[in-house]
C-alpha cells in the first residue's frame, strides 16, 4: 500500500509529524510531498493519503480535487476544530479525522491498522 503524506514545508508541526511518522513506521515507505500537484504522480487506487492540513485555504484546494481521491483511503489532520472546517474535512470521507493537537500515537495506530487490514485483504484475494 502506498502511503503519501501531504504537509507544509518549513512548518514546525508538519516537520515534527514527518519525523515521528518516519521513526515509527520504518517498514512503510512513506512518500512525503509538499504541494497538492505533487500528489497526483504518486496516487493510485490503493493509496493511503494523509493530509496534514495547515490552513483552511489548503483544505479548500484539496476539496477541488476530491474526485481523484475517491478510491483512496484518507486520514485528515485539520488545522482547527471549527464546525465548518470539520464539515469540509468530512467531504473527503476520511477513515480518520483529527486535529493538530491530537495524540500522534493514536494517528500512528490508525495508520498501522489501515495498512495491516489492506495486507490481509490482499492475502484473502489471492
Amino acid at each position: 500500500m502506498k502511503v503519501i503524506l501531504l504537509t507544509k514545508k518549513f512548518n514546525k508541526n508538519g516537520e515534527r509529524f514527518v519525523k515521528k511518522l518516519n521513526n515509527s513506521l520504518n517498514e512503510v515507505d512513506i512518500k512525503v510531498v509538499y504541494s497538492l500537484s505533487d500528489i497526483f504522480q504518486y496516487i493510485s487506487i490503493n493509496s493511503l493519503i494523509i493530509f496534514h492540513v495547515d490552513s483552511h485555504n489548503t483544505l479548500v484546494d484539496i476539496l477541488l480535487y476530491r474526485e481523484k481521491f475517491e478510491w483512496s483511503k484518507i486520514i485528515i489532520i485539520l488545522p482547527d476544530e471549527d464546525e465548518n472546517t470539520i464539515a469540509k474535512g468530512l467531504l473527503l470521507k476520511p477513515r480518520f479525522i483529527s486535529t493538530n493537537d491530537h495524540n500522534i500515537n493514536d494517528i500512528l495506530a490508525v495508520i498501522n491498522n489501515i495498512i495491516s487490514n489492506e495486507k490481509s485483504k490482499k492475502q484473502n484475494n489471492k
Partner: protein
Amino acid sequence: MSKILIIDDNTNFCALIKRAIKHYGFDAIIKNTLTEGVRESQKNQYDIVLLDVNLPDGNGLEVIPAIRSIALPPEIIIITAEGSCDGAEFAIKYGAWDYIQKGDSLHEITFSIIRALEYREKKLSQKIPIALKTDGIIGNSPHMKDLKDLIAQAAVSDANVLITGETGTGKELTARAIHENSSRADNNFVVVDCAALPENLVESMLLGHEKGAFTGAVMSKKGLVEHAHEGTLFLDEIGEMPYYLQKIFLRVLQERRFRPVGSTREVTSNFRLIAATNRDLDAMVREETFREDLLYRLRTISIIQPPLRDRKGDIRDLAFHYAFKYCTENGLETKGFSPEFLEMVMFYDWPGNIRELINVMEQSVIVSRDEPILFPIHLPKYIRVKFARSTNFTEFDPHKKQNESHPGLDSLPSLKEYRENIVSIAEKEYLKELMKKTEGDIEKACIISNLKRARLYSLLKKYSISKII
C-alpha cells in the same frame, strides 16, 4: 389485468395452474420450453413468471438474469418438482420472488402468486426520485438495476440500512448514493471505519470525550456521532466493532442520545445510520461475537452488494469507463481495447471486485504509454497466467468451435470458408501455446515451429498474440 407467464413442460400442471388463477381473474400464457418462454417474456410485458427448473432445453434458474434484464422486470416464482437448498439460494440471490415445490398445495402456489402481485402493485406505485444521483455506480445489469431500485427506496426513507458484500464491491459508494439522494444530503456524511480505529479509541471517536476523561484528553472533543447530526453516519466494517461497544451503540441507535466519555451531560444527535460489512453477521451472532439485537436494528433495509463475477455484463462498461478516466487524467489519447484484451478482462474472476478492476485498468493505461490500443501484454502477469492456464490445448476441437460459430445446418458455410476458419483457429491456438511453452523466446519458437522469424512475427501480428502470454 395482471399478466402471468408459465414456463413449464408439464402440460397438466400448467393447465391446473391456469385454471386456478383464472378463478382470481388472472390470465396466463403457457410456454413449454425455455427458449420460447424467455423470448415471450422479453416480447410482452408480464407481471409474474412462473418458471420451472428442469426444462427440456435447459435449467430455468440460469435464465433468471435474462428474464429480469428488461426495463420493468416481472416477479419470478420458481416452481420445481425437486427442491434443493442450493437452488433456492441461487433463485433468491438472483432476484426470484419465491421458490416453491410442485408438491405444495394449489392454494399455497396461488397464495404466492397473489402476494407477489400485491408486492408488485405496491412497488410500481411507489414514487422513485426521477434523477437518482448515482455517481460512480456503473452498470446496467439486472443486479445493478435492482441495486439502484434499493438505493432509491432507501433514500426516501429514514430507516437504518445494512449493506453487505465482498471487499471492493463499492459498499461505500452505495452508502454515499443513499445519503446524496436523501433529505439529509445537505448535511454531513460521516464515515467511521470500525476496522481502522484502535479499540481504545473507538468509543471516544464515536461519542466524543470531556477534557481529562483519560490520559491524553487534553481538551473536550465532539464525537463523530454528534458531527452526523441531521446527516448520515456510515459505520464501515461494523463487524469489527468491539463487543462491549456494541451495547453502548445499540442504546445510541435506539435513543439517538448518548454521553460522551467522561461526561455527565447527555448529547442528542438525529443521525441516519448506514452500516456495511464483508463479514457474515449472522454467523457472528451464532458465535456470540456480534449482538443479535444490534443486528436486527441495523437490518431494517438490507442491501446485498453483488460481486463483480456475478455481473459480468458490467465489466466491459466499467473497464471502458476507467480506461477513459485514466487516459484523461494522464493526458493520453483515449485508448481502444483489442478483442483479446477484452476477452481476458471478461474472463477473469476479479476476486478484488471493482477496486481490483480499477487498479488493473490504471496499470494497463500507464504501462501502454502512447500505444493507442490495449493488448493482453498490458495486463498484469497474474491475469494473463490465469487465462493461459485455463486454455487447455489438448481439448482443442476445431469442429466444436466451427459448430458454435455456425449453429444450425441452414447456416453451413462454403467448404473454403469452413477450411479457412478452421486453419485460423488452429493457427491461433498453436501460436498461443507456442509462445506459452517458449516463454516468448522467438528463436526457440522458430526452431519448434519450423517457421522463419519474419513469418512467425507476421502470424503473431495477424492474431494479435503477444510474445509473453
